[in-house]
């Protein structure tokens, strides 16, 4: 049986567009306008249902065509604390400059604590749209490092 619970994404991976459409259908059927899901990694998915009034007298069960989901940028957050390093110490290239495309799990920055280096990884596939953290700053656990717009 395919029920709503199976389709509620854990946001480690974004749901397929068909699945988002299905959720939107259910929302419309339930008379709800929107829903938002967020994950502990900072991922957020908001689904808005177009509010078109039904023509009077028309017996329509099928909902109005759902609007495509508005996918907001997702933050890559610090999994520990440390000094922020945005440039690969080996290659001297920025890990993930604005405009670059990253895959989920890619290293997008490092947190350095003396000899310890803790990677900050991309929570989703997408395009880096903003660098929030400043290089060499001491950043705390959970701090936003950069934002990625899902592709």
């Amino acid at each position, binding site marked *: 049986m395919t029920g709503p619970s199976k389709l509620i994404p854990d946001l480690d991976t974004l749901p397929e567009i068909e699945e988002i459409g299905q959720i939107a259908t259910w929302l419309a059927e339930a008379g709800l306008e929107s829903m938002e899901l967020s994950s502990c990694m900072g991922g957020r998915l908001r689904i808005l249902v177009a509010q078109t009034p039904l023509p009077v007298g028309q017996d329509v069960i099928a909902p109005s065509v759902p609007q495509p989901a508005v996918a907001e940028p997702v933050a890559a957050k610090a999994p*520990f604390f440390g*000094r922020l390093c945005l440039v690969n110490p080996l290659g001297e290239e920025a890990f993930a400059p604005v405009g670059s495309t990253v895959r989920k799990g890619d290293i997008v920055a490092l947190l350095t*604590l*003396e000899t310890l280096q803790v990677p900050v990884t991309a929570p989703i596939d997408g395009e880096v749209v903003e660098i929030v953290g400043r290089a060499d700053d*001491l950043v*705390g*656990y*959970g701090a936003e490092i950069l934002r990625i717009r899902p592709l």
Partner: protein
Amino acid sequence: MSDTQRFDRVLIANRGEIALRIQRACRRLGLETVAVHSEADAESRHVREADVALCIGPAAAARSYLDTDALLLAARVTGASAIHPGYGFLSENADFADAVEAAGLTFIGPTGASIRQMGDKITAKRAMRDAGVPCVPGSDGPLPASMDEVQVLAETVGFPVIVKASGGGGGRGMRVVWDAADLAEAVTLTAKEAQQAFGNPTLYLERFMQKPRHIEIQVLCDTHGTALWLGARDCSLQRRHQKVLEEAPAPGISPAVIAEIGARCAEACRKIGYRGAGTFEFLYEDGIFAFIEMNTRVQVEHPITEATTGIDIVCEQLKIAQGEALAIGQEDVVTYGHAIECRINAEDPFSFMPSPGTISRWDLPGGPGIRVDTHVVGGYTVQPYYDSLIGKVIGHGASREEAIARLRVALAEMRVEGVFTNLRLHQDVLADPRFQEGGVDIHYLERWLAERAAS
């Protein structure tokens, strides 16, 4: 020993009111502070006011305030060279104290060895007995085989006695004996049960204290051989072993008796080479003091001792950790008046369930003799992850009556909205004639609550 190194930046490995209390003491001494905190405490007052603030983990204490590795790394990366553990969390963790010192940092507290010694009830009791600190009268070891000898022993200890299995615990394998006629049967039965339950028939016996009070002695020791005791506190008002209201000195116990116990505690500290602040806890009944345990840290209720002695205990902890000698001797410790502390918790006043939420109104009391230690400000959100203590209101007066009167005015002035609190409980206790007489036992509050619930 690495306990005499100077430091100028202190990492506060705690949260809530005690973190702010430590920060104030650091500031007074010109020391910088590092506030490490969980994500849930990012908006805390001491975090916002710290010289350096660093979020070290999520709300769960195991991954923040209890994470030894994270705390040590945080100290290194922020340049802190000393760690104050406060109370709770890692404050009585001997391995943490050792790890701090092994990392070349100063632990603001006793050595790991002292914490370990006092953390084990048997070694603690042995050390205390050797140092002349009174413990519960008892057989001091296994019961003799001869029942006649057991009878003599029990008469010496004094009835009622409690017969316990050496291998027992958790309330099993013990029997209270009210008079000599029942002793032989009780010993035989308990030994049989102990053999069956624990595979060990060895028994010991102790005086059974029926309605004891909780009396404790505050000590302060430097690393130059000075150990002071700073008077007694009575913390008998408890609910489920949690102190609710504390006072100093202990009403109705002669200062001479306290002085005798205090001197023995200080002597015990010198013998075991104790350093920093600590508290000896006793049960007290019919003139008998029985050592229970030593707390090797600053206590929640330290302000009432500060009020009666004028000594800033947290500042003294910091100075001792810097290797300084205490500037005063025992003869300089003079207590004045009476102080009472009410622990204000965000909790349901009847069910005592924690009441997390955002505090929309926070009007604090004031006036002569009133001190409020709190990390809460208007708009603060009480988190569900930690204990529910939101503040402490301390009343001090020339007499116990004056302290009570000042506190009653203060509590009536205090307004807290947005969460439930136990303010009303404190008001009712302070108005209770039996409490006002002084000297209630450790079961009094629970009996009083049960009667209130029944009526």
